[in-house]
Each structure stands twice: as C-alpha cells, then as structure tokens.
C-alpha cells in the first residue's frame, strides 16, 4: 500500500546515530558518498561496506528496512547492470551474440556498480531514517547560511523544504483516502485495463489537487495569523549543538575516507 513507501521516512529511536548532530550527519553522508566513489576496487568497496553496516548496526534499525529502501530503485539497478554488461568490452569475451559482447571486464564492472549503488542507497537512507525531516532542514539551513551573503534565500528554501517534507505523509494519507473512497464507488485503480485505470486517475487527481490547494491556503493563513514574516530575526526552539561524540564520528568518517583513498592507490 501507499503508506509503506519508506523514502524519507523517519524511524524514531534513541541510538547513538539518532543523537548525532544533524549537521555532522549531512557532512558525513557527503564524505560517505565521496568514499564510495573514490575507491575503485573491491577492497575500497569492502571498507565502505564495513562503514555502512557498522553504522546500520549502531542505528538499531532492522536491516529489512534498508533492503526495502533499495526495492523501488531495482529497475534502475537492473538497467545500470545491463548497460555496463553490454557496453564494457574489456577482458575476455564470455558470450557473444551478434553485436552484443559480454566480457569478464563488463561483468566485473556491473557487479561492482550494483554493489556501489546499493551501498549508496542504504547509507543515505540511514540519514533520513535517523533524522527527523524538521531537524534535517534545520541543519541544511545552518550549513547553507554562508550563502546568505550572496543574497541566496536560504531561509525561504529551508522553509519550503520543511513544508514539502511535512506534507508528504499528509498527501500520501489523503491519496490513500481518496483512492479508497473512489474504489468504494467501483473505480478500478489497481485492477482493470490501462485505459480505465488512466481514466480513473482523474477521479483521484482532481480531489487531491483541490485539497492540496485548500491546505496551502489554510497553512498560509495560519502562518500569517502567527505573524510569520520570514527568516529575519527568527530564533529557534531547538538549538543545534555539537557534542564531542559528533567530532569523534566525523574523525572516524574522515579516517575511513583516508583509508579508502590510500587503499585505492595501493591496489
């Protein structure tokens, strides 16, 4: 069902990963992505995997949830693997049919790419699983705040992001409700031929748009009633404060990154 979509879903918890400063977590995730993409041999990837699974273990979120986050991207993974398999022509030819050649080099690269992408998805899911969307946008706002000097609307951007994030579950719930209501009137939405399904989509989209606009309107009024006037002079309820453990975690991540760079040179 729709409510089972997990991208960007937060899993409340109290693990060490949950408690890390979100700003550090974002920086660490960026370093993690760099880590995955600088190492171009299996040893580097192994180090990346150790880092990923170590962090997942510390987060105390079931591994199953991470596998579920990979699932929607499965078609993408298959296409990547297929393209690598068909167009990388290094090494010995294993199998050939007309112009399609499968070589051991190509096989190697596609396996490597798939593992790399799976790790990438799992690692970045960890960020959204352990950080609530609101703290996440807070952190982004803080990290981007130097850009304010060049008149970049950091606060407005962050506010837009938090509102969008905040309303994803609401809209999903709403869609679910409208779908149920139309199904109760016999609309074929997940069954039936392609054309009837497409036609029935209108019966969902129209009410959904109407309600989205209504909500936006109500939210704007509610914000104005509470004298919202943008980011100027606004203070925060939750101040972000870094603790020694944040620096330890960052140091550890840098260490892993360094290891990957060194190992990448050596082998």
């Amino acid at each position: 069902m729709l409510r089972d979509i997990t991208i960007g879903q937060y899993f409340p918890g109290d693990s060490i990963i949950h408690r890390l400063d979100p700003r550090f977590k974002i920086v660490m995730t960026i370093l993690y992505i760099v880590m995955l993409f600088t190492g171009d041999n299996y040893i580097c990837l192994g180090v990346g995997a150790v880092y990923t699974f170590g962090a997942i273990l510390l987060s105390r979120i079931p591994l199953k949830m991470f596998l579920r986050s990979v699932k929607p991207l499965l078609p993408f993974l298959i296409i990547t693997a297929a393209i690598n398999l068909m167009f990388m022509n290094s090494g010995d030819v294993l199998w050939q049919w007309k112009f399609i050649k499968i070589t051991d080099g190509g096989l190697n690269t596609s396996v490597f790419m798939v593992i790399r992408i799976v790790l990438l998805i799992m690692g970045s899911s960890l960020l959204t699983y352990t950080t609530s969307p609101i703290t996440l946008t807070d952190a982004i706002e803080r990290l981007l705040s130097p850009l304010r000097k060049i008149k970049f609307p950091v606060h407005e951007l962050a506010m837009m992001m938090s509102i969008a994030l905040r309303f994803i579950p609401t809209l999903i719930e709403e869609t679910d409700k409208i779908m149920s209501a139309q199904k109760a009137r016999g609309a074929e939405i997940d069954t039936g031929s392609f054309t009837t399904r497409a036609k029935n989509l209108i019966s969902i989209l129209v009410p959904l748009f109407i309600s989205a606009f209504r909500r936006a309107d109500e939210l704007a009024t509610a914000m104005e009633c509470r004298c919202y006037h943008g980011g100027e002079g606004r203070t925060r309820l939750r101040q972000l404060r870094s603790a020694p453990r944040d620096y330890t975690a960052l140091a550890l991540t840098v260490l892993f990154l360094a290891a990957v760079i060194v190992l990448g040179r050596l082998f």
Partner: protein
Amino acid sequence: MAILETQELTYTYSVGTPFEKTAVDHVSLKIEEGEMIGVMGHTGSGKSTLIQHFNGLLRPTSGKVLLDGKDIWENKEKIRDVRFRVGLVFQYPEYQIFEETVYRDIAFGPKNMGLDEAEIKRRVYETAHDIGLSEELLERSPFELSGGQKRRVAIAGVMAMEPRVLILDEPTAGLDPAGRDKILDHIRHYHERTKNTILIVSHSMEDIASFADKILVMSRAKLFCYDETVKVFARADEISQIGLDVPQITKVFGELRRRGLDFGKEVFTVGYARDLLLRQLAEREVR
C-alpha cells in the same frame, strides 16, 4: 441468515515495522438484513478499520468477512461486486467529489457498475430525491454548492449504487445542527423506503439513540458490545468507563432514579421523555 458476518476478524497495520499495530482484534459479529445499526467508539478504537472490511477495501490479516454467507475474499476478482453490494460513505465524503456536474458525480458509481444510461438516470434522480437535492442542482457544478449540499451529493453517489448494506462514517461531522438533522432525516426515509441495512458511525449519542435498532461499540480494537439500543444504554456505567457517553436525557433519568424517581424504563430521546412525563402526570391527576 445474517447479511453480513465477521468471524474472528483481525487486522494489523504495517506488519514488520516499528509502527505495527492491531486495529481490529478478533471481532465476530452478525448483522441481520434491514437493521439500522449505530457504531460507536473512540477515535482509534478500530471502528473505521472495521467498516472498511465490510466492503473489501481492507483484507483481513486473519479471520473472515461473510456477505450473504459467502466469504468475500473467496474470489479476489469479484471483490468489486462486493463494493456495489456494500456501499461505504467515508468521513467528509465531499472531498471525493470530482466531476463537472452533480449529476455526473452521482452517476460515477452506477456507471462503474456498467448500467445503461436509462437506469443510471433513474437512479440519479431517485437518490437525489431521497437525499433532498432538487433537480435543478443536478446540472450545477458540485463545487458551487454549500458544505451540506456537497455532503449530500457525495452520499447520493454511494446510494445510487443501490447497495443492500449502506455504511456511513460520521455522515454529520462538521455540519450545523440543521444540516445534521436534515441528513439524518433523509437517511431515515431512505431506510424506510428501501428497507436496506444501514450502519452509521457517529459520536453523537443523541443521534444514535434516535435511529438505531442496535448499537455496536468498539473499544481498543475489540468489540466491546453489540446489542439492542435499550440494552447497550442500560450499561451506561460501563460505557462511560471506556470514555464514551450516553445521551444526556438518559443521564438525567438515571440521576432521577438514583433520587428515588424510577420510571421503570430506559429513556434515550427527548421526545420519548416528554411523552413519558406527560403520561405520568396525567395518571396522577386521574388519581
């Protein structure tokens, strides 16, 4: 035979995640044809989840739902037919309206049933009449109507499928008293005309007392009780213990009894209370 029956019906949300929650827990009940049933329960008591099983929108985690003695999930392909036989009107149903005219929105369900134009037309006019929408409204855009009118259009959209069981989830929520009475009156007339089975979820004890033959009470995912209205409101103490209320007039008469003025009967509606008191007064004068 009962028209609708559940056997050990259980439903668990989000199995295998930290949000796992059993919303309906081993509920077994039988609903007889032609009954008017009030459904009560707190927010989160599982009543909305329960009613979504009656027309096959949700599939039980375990247990069965029987319609006319047949398991509705026996043949998955036929589940759409179940939805035509058991009509479900959701809470705030006006938010599901999408067509350009009132007529077309009411006709959406019958059209999905594959009926011919003439039959659809008959049904739209008949249900519009049943729910108190005048004919000139039918060609208007539903989005120009008032809140109460929109609500009635949405209810008519389900009624037009002529389901044998009609379930309404809080049909009067958010309406003013006049709009509320109007909708309940129309539903009552519809019931008298069609003799169909009707289930109404409501938070208002006064409303439930005024129409229900039987009351179904859900509490913490379990069936708390399911019995005739008289018997359920006679258990006023237990009902208030699970955080629900009995009608105010019942409370008044309960208090009168405690002070030694027993009328020997449970009282649920103001009209009945007035008749009872007048009769008692008349008897005294005779004496």
